């Protein structure tokens, strides 16, 4: 399983908020163990989905000295089970956005119902730590369809 936990960005206000989505296929191996006979998306993956969505929002504004990385999970709640093949809508609102750190209030919905939420804290890893030719395919896809917003 690749660790790209955002399929698509639907709305983006760089550095401020984002709406995105992810669907985990029932064929993913992790569901064999989580749990046998009762496959549900792990809470840690839901948290990572929200973090990746918020991270893309931060990376999109281009004001930071590096890429957004999850630094702390200040709190997370998991209210409903999320089943494989369900489309998970991810919402992140950036509540603090500074050069050295950022915070975000995030939640996820399935079929209009809130399934989890988290308060996340981000730090920024210098760009030169990453492969020089690395591009974020999900952000790139969004900018292709929203060229006026592309940096």
């Amino acid at each position: 399983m690749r660790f790209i936990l955002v399929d698509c960005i639907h709305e983006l206000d760089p550095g401020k908020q984002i709406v995105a989505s992810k669907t985990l296929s029932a064929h993913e191996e992790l569901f064999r163990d989580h749990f046998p006979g009762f496959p549900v998306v792990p809470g840690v993956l839901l948290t990572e989905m929200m973090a990746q969505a918020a991270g893309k929002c931060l990376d999109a504004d281009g004001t930071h000295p590096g890429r957004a990385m999850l630094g702390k999970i200040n709190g997370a709640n998991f209210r409903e089970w999320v089943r494989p093949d369900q489309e998970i809508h991810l919402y992140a609102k950036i509540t603090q956005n500074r050069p050295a750190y950022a915070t975000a209030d995030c939640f996820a919905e399935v079929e209009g119902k809130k399934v989890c939420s988290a308060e996340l804290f981000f730090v920024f890893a210098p760009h030169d730590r990453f492969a020089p030719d690395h591009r974020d395919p999900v952000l790139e896809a969004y900018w292709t369809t929203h060229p006026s917003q592309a940096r």
Partner: protein
Amino acid sequence: MTQRDAIEWIAKIFETSPDQLTPDTPREGVAAWDSLGVLTLMASLDSDFGIVLSDDDVQGIKTVGDILHVMQRNGKLG
């Protein structure tokens, strides 16, 4: 806010007991006062008190007393 309240607030930021902190406590004496702890402090001063630290401010904070001084300088400590 009193100094006692401020030290309790700082203790919460660094996930330690207020009894472990005095104004003379150095950064090295607080386990969670690492690079992430510095950023958490900055974010919390910002969100809780509206204090935005400059790079010089951050460089100058080496003890609990330095944090208290920042809070006092910004009118948050009586």
